[in-house]
């Protein structure tokens, strides 16, 4: 087992199979009837059901950022509205998307891999195929579409709740009144920032759902295989999310 094989050949062939799977899946994009019901179901399970945990995590990260910024930066020579000027762009540019991404990598990624992995090892995917259905279109397309649609929505919720949490805790702790917080926020606000955040959310949504679909769809080895696939989906989603985060920042900022 040479190093070249581990570092180059295997990843490339995985990438090839990943691309092929997505290609095959999206050939059926026009056949809305076959996946519409699944799409709606996935919007609920990926999107709606994730709102509470996303809101909770975003609120806390907003609050922590406020407290930390106050601790690190505010001094007699730096005005306290710096808190708003830092917390709001951090939330919009990075934190809201990354918090959403990490939570959903665990929650949605693992779930997708477990579902599809179980269907694979119990021959349910074979059963779909044997009926003459394109199983990739039926199973994968609705999950990826739901991810790409719901992630930006969850991102917006996370950004909003995070900012509110940051402003709220600053106000309650007497660090900075809400009016001054928002004043600081306006100082450095760029309209492109939320656009960038939404782009990020779309990319993250695609990465997590498509990667988990790939891992789940190719599961083998019974219940143990499903367990492995589940972990692998969550872990690799997180890693690729970080890589994409950096690449997007380099490209757009």
């Amino acid at each position, binding site marked *: 087992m040479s190093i070249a094989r581990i570092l180059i050949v295997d990843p490339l062939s995985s990438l090839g199979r990943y691309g092929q799977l997505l290609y095959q899946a999206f050939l059926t994009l026009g056949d809305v009837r076959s996946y519409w019901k699944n799409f709606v179901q996935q919007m609920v399970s990926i999107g709606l059901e994730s709102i509470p945990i996303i809101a909770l995590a975003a609120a806390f990260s907003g609050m922590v950022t406020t407290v930390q910024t106050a601790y690190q930066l505010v001094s007699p020579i730096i005005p306290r509205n710096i808190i708003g000027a830092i917390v709001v762009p951090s939330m919009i540019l990075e934190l809201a998307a990354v918090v959403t991404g990490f939570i959903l990598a665990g929650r949605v990624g693992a779930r997708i891999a477990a579902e599809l992995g179980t269907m694979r090892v119990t021959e349910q995917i074979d059963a779909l*195929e044997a*009926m003459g259905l394109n199983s990739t279109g039926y199973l994968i397309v609705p999950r990826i579409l739901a991810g790409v649609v719901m992630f930006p929505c969850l991102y917006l919720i996370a950004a909003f709740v995070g900012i509110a949490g940051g402003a709220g805790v600053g106000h309650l702790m007497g660090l900075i009144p809400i009016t001054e917080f928002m004043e600081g926020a306006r100082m450095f606000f760029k309209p492109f920032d939320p656009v960038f955040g939404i782009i990020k959310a779309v990319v993250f949504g695609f990465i997590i759902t498509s990667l988990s679909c790939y891992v789940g769809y190719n599961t083998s080895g019974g219940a143990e295989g499903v367990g492995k696939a589940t972990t692998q989906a969550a872990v690799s989603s997180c890693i690729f999310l970080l890589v994409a985060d950096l690449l997007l920042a380099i490209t757009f900022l």
Partner: protein
Amino acid sequence: MIEIRNLHKQFDGRDVLMDVSLDVHDGETLAIIGRSGSGKSVLLKHIVGLLNPDSGRVLVDGVDINAISYDELRMVRRNFGVLFQGGALFDSMSSFDNVAFPLRLFTQMTEEEISEEVQICLSMVELPDVGSVFPADLSGGMQKRVALARAVALRPRYILYDEPTSGLDPETSNTIDVLIKGLADQLNVTSIVVTHDMHSVLSIADRAAFIHQGRMHWTGTIQELHESDDQTLRAFVKANEYFIGDPAERGQTAS
């Protein structure tokens, strides 16, 4: 008509099917018998293109299913109903929705018509009341029967059964045998039944094919099965504790 020609299949360097050839004629019921692990399920999956042979061909109505596009293959597959060994019911759906699934997907039937049809199919497998039950809450044998109902829902021309009666009590097995025979006779279905159960073979099949260690060891009619002096085949049949002899005597040993 299904023609299997010189099929070879390896898994991880291990030969599972070697030079397997087999013809299945329209309207007949063919039983595939053989010991556990001999490659019966693998062969069945090749017939609907779920596995691709390393070499050899599978022809369905004269069409080589490994030489056509995926979309064309899907059209060929719509002529098939497949009962998988483990049932392969969709566990996110109720039994009703499982049986209704192919109807909703491939027919223009209204929900009402579908509901009626599903009821008919579930009654055929003697489970008229399980519509609302999810697969996880059914016994293994019941899952198998719901899966059978799903496989026949579209009244396909070809039905592949992978051990339809394994894990069922003798009485239910009989019902399933009668059902399989009924479908074959009334709807002129071409059936391939993988089974360990010699009683099933004798009561439903026109011909049998015996796979031994990945090779097609023997094929012939049921009559020829009785008369065969092939040692391996006889050993297999004997192990099933069935008396090979005059069909009239079989009834006594079966009870």
